């Protein structure tokens, strides 16, 4: 029976390469989360009613999902009132108007992926 011998060095190099890719992926994900958080806080600072809550906005991971919002329960009911308004107060939406920020984050993620892994194949 024929056999192929693979050197230990080659396997070590492959393993190192895969680990680097994995670490790169984690770094890229963290960078994008940071980018989105900055975008959102910036928007909160310039959205009427949200200025004083901007620094309370957090990003966290829970149950395998990424969450963006206010974790401090002391601010939740106030944030709810600002977001949806009531009879007396018109709504000043922040969380429902993040399309531009999500779009910018997507663009940032694409640019970051191209910088890390190249532009991909063009055929």
């Amino acid at each position, binding site marked *: 029976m024929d056999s192929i011998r693979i050197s230990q060095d080659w396997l070590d190099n492959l393993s190192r390469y895969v680990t680097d890719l994995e670490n790169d992926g984690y770094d890229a994900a963290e960078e994008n989360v940071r980018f989105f958080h900055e975008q959102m806080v910036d928007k909160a600072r310039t959205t009427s009613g949200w200025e004083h809550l901007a620094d309370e906005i957090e990003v966290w991971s829970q149950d395998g999902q990424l969450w963006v919002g206010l974790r401090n329960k002391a601010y939740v009911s106030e944030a709810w009132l600002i977001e949806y308004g*009531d009879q007396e107060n018109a709504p000043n939406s922040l969380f429902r108007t993040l399309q531009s920020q999500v*779009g910018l984050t997507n663009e940032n993620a694409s640019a970051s992926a191209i910088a890390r892994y190249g532009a991909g194949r063009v055929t």
Partner: protein
Amino acid sequence: MTIRPLIAPPDIHQHVGFMLAEDEALKSYLTGIQVPGQRPEDPPIDVGVWFRWPTGERQIKYPFITIDSITAEPAYELFHSNHWEPIVDTDGSTLYRPSFAPELPEPSMGWGAGDYQVLNFLPFRLVYQVNVYSRYNLHDRYLRSIFATDVFPQRPWWIGVDADNTWRRTEQIGYAATDSSETNESGTKRIFRKVYSIQMLAEVPQQRLADAEFYRVFKVFISAYDRERLEHFFDIAHEGKDVPTPAVLP
């Protein structure tokens, strides 16, 4: 306004113009909903529609609907980079145009020498909050039911705009229940409030935006006929190389 004359201000009396036409279309779309009376023999009750909370001099009659305009933002990710585009490109291809008209008369300078051009329509995203108020539990459930199935179906739908006989793609982007209670001289009463967030896509013709020669885009159309040319662009945009003079371009 002293800087320059406005390009296309909306007409508040005719309810036409950017945003006013869409506001009117949404109100018209929601007008005409009825809920059954509390007993089978009672006549159906009309559900009123207001922008924002009804003013103090109106008698508030439940159930009713209010509309809040949340935002009107450019949908930059749907913008593209061409300022003007020929209907037929140099390679004979045409961009998708639902109203493409093959019977257009020959341009004054003749085919090949002259051409028709189409200005961009720049998409904007209008976000509305639609609040549905009820006093009676079964009316709340009835309205919740018909909103989920008929009024705001669980897929994008279209709202007709009478101002220009066009349609606006609309979709529901959120729902929240913010029930509360109201205390007055006759005691405490429940108020059921259901909040729907919807977004409507509208387009503004490029020539109606001031200084529309320049606007922000996320994606750029590049005439890349071959891989070499695309790599040229990549070198310039991502690697920081100098822009070659047109004569050097392949």
